[in-house]
């Protein structure tokens, strides 16, 4: 793609989300969403690969009805109440439908099915954008709507956690696994949204922090399926040693960053007496933990089953770890001691 065009789309990508984030008006927010969608589609189809083209088409077809429904509901709301403010929506049906549409946009259960499908057609960096930045705008809108319909939110959240866990169990493609991981994390955010929006925001931030290096590592080594993971050890041994920690951090194991949101969310729920919900979310977190564990097992604990002639290619062609990766790996593993600070910043 022409660099000028690319930079234009990237700018549009940024500005679309920023327009949504800064608008209090449904029309503006919708416009931001549309700009966002329009900007990402050429980026998705950048390679003109059949899978990429397919993914771009699918992505467009998914986002278009979702945005249309949002606009439809916003207009309905405007007609019924006479105002366009986002956080003053008071009519129930439009809110629920908007929630579903936003969930569809973000790829949450039960309307999650497009996300693994589309993500499978992308290269990993675009996938990273799709699973982090693209979710910011709808996520912000949901955050604005949080005050009503707790049941819908909790149902969406719980279903996402469960579906994300179960869906990822049977996958061999890293991109699909990461898509399901994204679904699960979104679920965690939505489950707690009703009770503590700050916690949701924090979870989102930490999810982005944690998923960033994973995508980057996989991109750097071009490991699209589980089979290729053991090669990490020969290419980048350091990363190979670190990736289990990263993945388990995503899964939410204690000494790592990923534990913070899970800990605080479950603590919050227990404080509110929602023991059943806390138990369900905590237990269904185990499913995703299982596939993270499997990834780590294959990537660094075992050797590649196929005999490779070059055991230490990193000696011949030293791969320096990119700076961005270096800076993201550290916070995605070691933020737990800073929990009080994060707490005071976000909560």
């Amino acid at each position, binding site marked *: 793609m022409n660099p000028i*065009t690319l930079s*234009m*789309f990237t700018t549009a990508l940024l500005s679309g989300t920023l327009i949504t984030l800064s608008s209090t008006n449904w029309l503006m927010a919708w416009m931001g969403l549309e*700009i966002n969608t329009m*900007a990402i589609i050429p980026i998705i189809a950048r390679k003109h690969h059949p899978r990429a083209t397919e993914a771009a088409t699918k992505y467009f077809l998914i986002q278009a009805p979702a945005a249309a429904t949002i606009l439809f509901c916003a207009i309905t709301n405007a007609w019924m109440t006479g105002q366009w403010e986002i956080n003053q929506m008071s009519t129930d049906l439009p809110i629920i439908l908007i929630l579903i549409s936003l969930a569809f946009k973000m790829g949450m259960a039960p309307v999650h099915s497009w996300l693994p499908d589309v993500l499978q057609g992308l290269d990993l960096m675009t996938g990273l954008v799709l699973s982090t930045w693209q979710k910011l705008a709808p996520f912000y809108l949901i955050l604005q709507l949080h005050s009503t319909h707790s049941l819908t939110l909790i149902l969406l959240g719980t279903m996402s956690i469960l579906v994300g866990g179960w869906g990822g169990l049977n996958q061999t493609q890293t991109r699909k696994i990461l898509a399901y991981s994204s679904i699960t994390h979104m679920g965690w955010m939505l489950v707690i949204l009703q009770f503590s929006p700050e916690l949701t925001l924090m979870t989102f931030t930490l999810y982005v922090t944690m998923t960033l290096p994973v995508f980057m590592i996989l991109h750097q080594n071009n490991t699209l399926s589980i089979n290729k993971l053991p090669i990490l050890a020969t290419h980048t041994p350091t990363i190979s040693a670190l990736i289990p920690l990263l993945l388990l951090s995503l899964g939410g194991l204690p000494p790592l960053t990923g534990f913070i949101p899970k800990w605080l969310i479950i603590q919050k729920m227990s404080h509110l007496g929602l023991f059943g919900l806390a138990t369900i979310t905590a237990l269904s977190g185990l499913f995703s933990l299982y596939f993270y564990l499997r990834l780590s097992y294959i990537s660094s604990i075992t050797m590649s089953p196929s005999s490779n002639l070059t055991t230490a290619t990193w000696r011949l062609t030293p791969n320096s770890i990119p700076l961005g990766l270096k800076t993201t790996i550290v916070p995605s593993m070691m933020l737990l001691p800073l929990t009080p600070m994060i707490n005071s910043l976000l909560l």
Partner: protein
Amino acid sequence: MTFIMYIALLVMVVGLGAVVAHPSPYFGSLTLVVVSGAACVVLIVYGGTFLALVMFLVYLGGMLVVFAYTTALAADSFPYTLTYGDVMLYWTLYMGLSLICYVKCTVVGVVEGWDLFENWEEFGIFESDVRGMALMYSDVGSLLLIGGWMLLLTLIAVLELCRGNSRGALRAV
């Protein structure tokens, strides 16, 4: 007026059903034209004359292109029409569904607020759509700018997707 309105609404619903039911792009886009026309009529009846005019012009231009493309791209010589069994079945199904929705939703107060727009008709000197237009141009000019930017972006995105000799529109090479 009410009669025309009802006819237009009926054509719209039936036409939409046909759009969804048609498997061939040829008839799909044809019925889409019909639906658009009916929609414009509905808008006129609601009082949005300017809006209806603009929309009709846009549709006239845009739909013609779509129609031309679809007929050009559609490869089948004998496209399915409404009279085919499957197509008819789906069409009947959609009609039935919309009938149920109509009966149900008019009873429940979901659509009650819809006459708000209609009621505005009585007040003011200008037509309501003209008022909205003025509002958009004067007070919230930024909205217009963004809207324009959005359209431009869409255009560029479509161009980016379709340009080049070897890799035509979205088709995998």
